[in-house]
């Protein structure tokens, strides 16, 4: 009986040590820290704006959770590498200015869904993503740079962004 209890203890403690060992030594180790706000300075060059936008797309924006880098079968959302060109095409189809279209896609994504995709993108100026105006402009410039001419700049594009945010607020979107 005593031997049985000892074996039982070994099984319980041993399995727990084994699982902790797998967690410690077989799984990759990294922490996930809350994103920091990126300050965009007035008069920032478009190259720098695009670089900042790229950083946000792959970090605070969490765009990579759904958007693949390259086109792939069964993708949930349009691929980043060609997204500027796709947006330009859709803006023309909808007879919209490119800047308005890009901002609308960020703050009111349900307004227009590209064919073949589902309505699943949240408005990223709202929680939990909560990008600031400057960050939204940087992201928009980066997206434009993927196959279209970059026309968005900071702070010149702020009024167009505000226009789209106001439109979304009036719609009472989530």
């Amino acid at each position, binding site marked *: 009986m005593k031997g049985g209890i000892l074996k039982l203890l070994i099984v319980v403690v041993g399995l727990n040590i084994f*699982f902790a060992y797998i967690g410690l030594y077989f799984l990759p180790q990294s922490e996930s820290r809350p994103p920091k706000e990126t300050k965009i300075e007035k008069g920032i060059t478009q190259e720098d704006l695009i670089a900042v936008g790229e950083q946000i797309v792959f970090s605070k924006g969490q765009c990579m959770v*759904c958007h693949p*880098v390259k086109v792939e079968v069964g993708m949930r959302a349009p691929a980043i590498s060609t997204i500027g060109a796709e947006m330009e095409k859709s803006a023309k189809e909808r007879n919209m200015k490119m800047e308005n279209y890009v901002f609308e896609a960020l703050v009111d994504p349900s307004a227009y869904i590209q064919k073949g995709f589902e309505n699943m993108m949240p408005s990223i100026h709202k929680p939990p993503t909560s990008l600031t105006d400057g960050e939204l402009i940087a992201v928009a410039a980066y997206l434009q740079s993927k196959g279209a001419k970059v026309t968005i700049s900071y702070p010149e594009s702020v009024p167009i962004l505000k226009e789209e945010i106001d439109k979304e607020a009036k719609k009472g979107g989530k």
Partner: protein
Amino acid sequence: MADVSPSKSLIKGVIKLTLFLGIGFAVLFILNKVLAAPTEDGYRFFPVIGSRVWVWVIAQLHLNFAAFVLGVPIFAVSMEFIGWRRNDERLDRIAYDFTKLFTLAYTLTAAVGTILLISLPVLYPKFIDHLMKILGPTWWVYVVVMYVETLVCYYYFYSWKQMKGNKKGKHVALGGLLNIMGMTMLLITSAWVGYMTTPGGVSDTGELINRWHAIKTYMWIPLSLHRLVANVVFGAGIAAAYAAYRFITAENDEQRAYYDWMGYTSAMISIGFSLILPGVGYMLGVEIYTFNEQMGIQLMGGFFAWLWVMQAILIGAILMFVNYYLWISLNKMPGGERYFKYVKFLFIVNLLSYAVWLTPHSIALSLEEARRMGAYHPVLGSLGVMASKNTAVVVSYMATFLSFTIFKISNKEPVVSWAKLGHAIRAFVIVGSTVAAIAIGIYSYMVTSAVRVKILSPIQFGIFFLSIIILFVLDSMMYKGAKIIGEPKWGKMPERSQYALIGITVTFTWLMAMMGYMRSGGRQFWHVYGIMKDTSPDAYLPTHGYAAVVSSIVTVIFFALIGLLFWSIMKLEKASEKGGAKT
């Protein structure tokens, strides 16, 4: 213990619960007076290990005990009912033993719950104030239901002997009431978690708009269902561990035979109900995706992607333990040796499925890494997707169901005239459903994720459930009045089989701790997702290794307490035997 009269047991229950609540509120009051005021953003800090780890450990321990005391009554009462209708004393005895377990576990549940009751408002006052503002009335309903549940539980257990015979129906009804109370508590606590993760009924700044909407969140019902099923799986697992403990410490063959049967029954309830878990887990996942696609994807394929590999390791281990247990069990079945030759094939099928299940989608941990390598690993990316994993899960569950079927029929010979046709139908259903599941898995690569998630995966699981229902009905008809080669030799099991049962329960408990962490971690750096930010120094997700160590610590503490419970039951039984009273 059972020599307490039912009416006295009610007084005992009220005193115990009031004492715990009283101590909880008194300590809370004193600590709020004695301790320094919380920081400006509403935090106090637990010494050495920090507030997060402290609450993490206590909350998970409380959740484990709560799962146990809510899960076991479901099948205990069902068994009492069946035992009563069939006039089966053995079923009544096992139902009574299950009831003994959860009744005595109530004290531990309340003790850990009291520590949690003190810890949360002391360490996270601002967050708890917010929760009380939004869901406060539900907390008071919870307290009332807790009293009623405890009283019903005590009365149910302590009146067992007195309410035999013509009062049995009333006693079973009492058990039904106990389960209704348990489910109400489950619904209330799931509403709290649901609000934190998928909030509703409040403005962007957290002002209450509609309390009912704050209760009825996306997560509420699917989480409750998932917990309900998981509680039964977990509760039955602990009961199996208890039986294994009693088998190992048994002093005679009669005890060994009874606890072998109890262990087998509990383990099969646990595994049987676990078959439903992927389905209700899927429903929960769909609701999370519907609430916020980003949260869903972050949980499934973002930072937590590797923990799904860990989950696969754990569930695969559980299935291996179960299959091993069933294969050893063939030794106690007269005629079981005829089926040994199939075991190696089932082992290979399980092993291959396990390997696919374990394949990670990407070896990247962060989005930065994913970007560098082009989102997914070129080789693992194609095997590590849900299309192949779902298929592997279905196939390995099918193999485990077959192990169970083999055990069940191993000591029987069908006598029906259509037995050959029956065997052919069985083979067709097994092969056909497996081929269909694999074909759907392959086709899933060629469609959009929406079609796979919403159409193909449910069909795949549907085929599995349909086939096990067909097999179950077929075997029931085919083996009705079958020739029995010999009765199972309960108790004639090697001791190592019992460690497999313990292994199932330890692994499941660890899995619960990890999944609890993932469910909570899905909110990332939010107390209430998108509404109330976590601004404490703990507002980050730790490494997987760190989370694994905490999960192990929780599981070891839980088993130490459960071991204490098992030991106390044996002590009380011995004391009752010495005193001449029956337990």
